[in-house]
């Protein structure tokens, strides 16, 4: 398994280089270094000399990919792409355009993102699986039909509606929790987290429960389930002991891969609830055309996604003894 992991990690390097090139190309197709400078320097009394100076100080005065004026390896290395990308592989994110250390900000913002993402993820998973099992148990009854209808309705509604509706109902009308904000650690933060976490659960409920229901129904039709029933096992025991266990592989595919990405936060939720997490950090960076942050967050997202995929592969071996990772 160790060799397999090493190989997967090595595969990740060209993927990350590719992601970097793509991010770089897409970003600079829309924003030029002049754009970035203007965004930072403001609109009043800004002259081209100020823009040039800003670019020079931050290394944005070089060519993007190929420096035709340089010689040897400098053709590739004396470019914005090389200078801005190479340090990422050592997880040195550098400074944002406003001078703040990106690594520090990421560490600071990871906590708030996780404080919402983890409860929403765990509770969401439990609720979805429970509801899906319930539907599987009552398959082909009115409970199943109306449950599926509910799922379809819920997955058809935009996440934004849940956020605004939740804020309106729970915070504005019922006065149960603050509309937005974030507290320090401990119980003071609980009242800020509960609503975004519930909304996270609700907005993922429809699609999650439907997917798991399908997986469970697929398993329920298999021979081993019939055998279990023939042995006289109760339906609950069949569902929890056999169906759930065997449906874990496809569930794990979707679940484990997103675990590392929980660090990245939720873009809309964080913005609307004033949560100082990594989701709102990314949104802000895109709005302010801060390439350093955008690049760091995309890189981090890619790394976490790759980690998630590797973890998924490893988890297969844990839940299904038949699967062995090739040496």
């Amino acid at each position, binding site marked *: 398994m160790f060799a397999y992991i090493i190989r997967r990690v090595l595969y990740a390097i060209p993927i990350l280089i590719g992601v970097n090139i793509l991010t770089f190309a897409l970003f600079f197709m829309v924003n030029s270094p002049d754009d970035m400078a203007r965004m930072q320097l403001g609109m009043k009394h800004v002259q081209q000399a100020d823009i040039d100076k800003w670019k020079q100080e931050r290394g944005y005065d070089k060519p993007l990919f190929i420096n035709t004026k340089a010689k040897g390896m400098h053709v590739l290395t004396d470019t914005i792409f090389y200078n801005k990308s190479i340090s990422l592989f050592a997880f040195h994110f550098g400074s944002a355009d406003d001078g703040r250390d990106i690594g520090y900000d990421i560490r600071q913002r990871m906590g708030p993102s996780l404080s919402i993402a983890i409860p929403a993820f765990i509770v969401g998973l439990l609720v979805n699986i429970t509801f899906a099992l319930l539907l599987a148990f009552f398959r082909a009854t009115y409970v199943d039909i109306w449950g599926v209808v509910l799922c379809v309705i819920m997955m058809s509604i935009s996440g934004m509606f849940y956020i605004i509706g939740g804020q309106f109902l729970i915070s504005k009308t019922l006065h149960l929790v603050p509309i937005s904000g974030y507290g320090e650690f401990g119980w003071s933060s609980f009242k800020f987290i509960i609503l975004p976490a519930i909304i996270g659960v609700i907005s993922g409920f429809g699609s999650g429960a439907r997917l798991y229901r399908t997986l469970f129904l697929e398993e329920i039709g298999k021979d081993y389930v019939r055998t279990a029933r023939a042995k006289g096992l109760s339906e609950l025991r069949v569902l929890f002991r056999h169906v759930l266990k065997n449906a874990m592989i496809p569930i794990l595919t979707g679940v484990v891969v997103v675990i590392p990405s929980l660090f990245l936060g939720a873009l809309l939720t964080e913005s609307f609830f*004033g949560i100082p997490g990594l989701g709102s950090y990314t949104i802000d960076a895109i*709005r302010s055309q801060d390439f350093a942050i955008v690049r760091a967050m995309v890189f981090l997202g890619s790394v976490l996604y790759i980690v998630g995929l590797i973890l998924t592969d490893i988890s297969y071996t844990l839940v299904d003894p038949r699967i062995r990772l090739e040496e």
Partner: protein
Amino acid sequence: MQAVASLNTNKHRQTVFAKLKSWLARPVQLGGVLCLTCLVAGCSKSSWNNPYPASESGKNIIYSAFRERPKHLDPAQSYSSNEYTFIGEIYEPILQYNYLKRPYQLEPLTATQIPHPVYYDANGKQLPDNAVLDQIAYSLYTIHIKPGILYQPHPAFAKDAKGNYLYHHLSDTELTHIYRLSDFSHTGTRELTAADYVYQIKRLASPRLHSPIFGLMSEYIVGLADYAKTLQQAYKQLGGDEDQSVYLDLTKYPLDGVKQIDRYTYQIKVKGKYPQLLYWLAMPFFAPMPKEADIFYSQLGLQQRNITLDWYPVGTGAYMLTENNPNRRMVLSRNPNYHEDEYPSQGSPEDKKEGLLADAGKKLPFIDEAIFSLEKEDIPYWNKFMQGYYDASGISSDTFDKAISFSQTGNAQLSEDLKQRHIHLLTTVQPTTIYLGFNMLDPVVGGYDEKHRKLRQAISIAIDYEQYIAIFVNGRGIPAFSPIPPGIFGFRKGEAGINPYVYEWHNDKAERKSIAQAQQLLAEAGYPDGISAQTGKPLLINFDTAASGSDSKAWFDWLRKQFDKIHVQLNIRNTDYNRFQDKMSKGNAQLFNWGWNADYPDPENFLFLLYGPNSKVSSQGENAANYSNPEYDRLFVQMKNMGDTPQRQAIIDKMLALLQRDAPWVWGFHPEAYTLYHDWLKNVKPNLMAQNTLKYRRIDPKERQQYRKKWNHPVLWPLWILLLIVAISLLPAIVTYRRKEHQAVVNRARED
């Protein structure tokens, strides 16, 4: 057999129910914990939805918000209103705007008096105050500051018993537990001196900083442009290009135009005559900067921890930044070392009537702490304001209809809901002009001959800004007749102030000229019915803009309709901001939209936007229309250096007449700011020039507490109903389950 089956069934049923019970018990237990938590929260002093800790209840704290994190808090770099919200309260320039007086008036802040310039000729001979402009080679401002003013407590000033600075040479070990400024255990202070003001002016030229006013100031302050080169060279020699921690002692590099005379006096030498310098001296660019702070923050270890002068200001103002978390909240706390300062005693009769003089002569500041929370979206901000968790608010277009209604006379008034909450409304026209500009270099819309003028005048009539204001800004604005907004010297009210080329004076009000008149002008311009008399082709005008978003489309459609009225085609060339800027700087745009917000309350700050030598194409200046009229330019130079006298008004009248005739802009509108504030917030008067208004504000925390309690009772009954619905909907499922299990057992028994 049947008995056995029945026994088995009962046993099985019991087991199933026991499982179901335990299965259902978990959510019930969770619900119980949740309810308990809610009860605990309910038993606490504050409401459930209170976003602030219960410990803050009843405290003398003002609550506000910021939408995006400030980019710079260094007074040499900062130039945005959202940054001035903080640094305006912390840094103290020598002058400030009187809080109550209108029109805006400067008064001393840390200076003993408003400096009066002394003029000199090229030979260094002093000239009288009324000297002719051509004779004045330079003006000398001598500034005396008040003694005894202390800086806020700050680690940069902390010294040990021997008098050595504690934190100016921090080792890696000492930095181990330092993550923010408050982690330093010792602080110190020292007296404000003239040297600090000199130091800051030198910083404007620092190659490490991007002071937005360096270019402008180097045109006036003697030697500043060369000083920047000197500093650039000095940094290079010290290896500052590679090493960010290199500290350059600016005191070792003299600047010709700025000199310290004694501990409390310094001089600024300005080329020619530049009376607007006084306004600049009231801005944070010219606030004092202690050398100790610069040394302290230049340490690499602190920079790596985001502890820089750009993030942790140090000043003498009424407040200091005690919490700087731009990701969540920023906190300004009362500066314990703040000098003597009193609430103004003079104001208008309206001010007295509004209770704005109730605190006259009282010691400032009133508020202990100002907490600014990050609030990116309008809806949560508005709802929190309505719940009493923010003390004041603007009005977004989403909430405008809920907050404001218009009376039959067209006056804005509060809606019933807001009136019942004792919320107050303040409206004030902003010192801002939003306009559409013609590129005067363009062969179609530019030019100064009669035909081109008439074309621009016709378009100016056709674009109905009264309608624009009603549709797009909820009536929050007034149409502009010239670049000068109300409240700025030179603005004329009534018939004398209207633009006679676009408006007519009827029934004591300005009425836009008819479309027929616009079409007549268009025909005289050589485009009868929108068709070129020369080529026979329809007139097509290109509108360049960087506007984006869903609102823009409606605006573009509206703009097309305005041109349609005179049968002129409008082509919208929507582009990104950078390309738009590029077009503007190269003079490739034809018609564009732009705006200007006053730096200071002087007509020069608006009229310079059309001064020929400031042309965007030729000198990258702020004259985006590239308007160049020698007569206007001559009058501008004359007007620029005058006091607010009738003679100056007469010159401005002439300049405005030229502008209205030439019509380089479609004059657009001046936006109006609507501010809502709760009854417990006192001494609220919009002062759009002052940066340090927080110290005048006062709150009644008890009144706020009572209102918050009244408005935020938790409503629980819908939750119980929801739980009931869930329980009821589960019942048939349980029955179905029981029936199913029973059937299975019966079937099994039968098989047996």
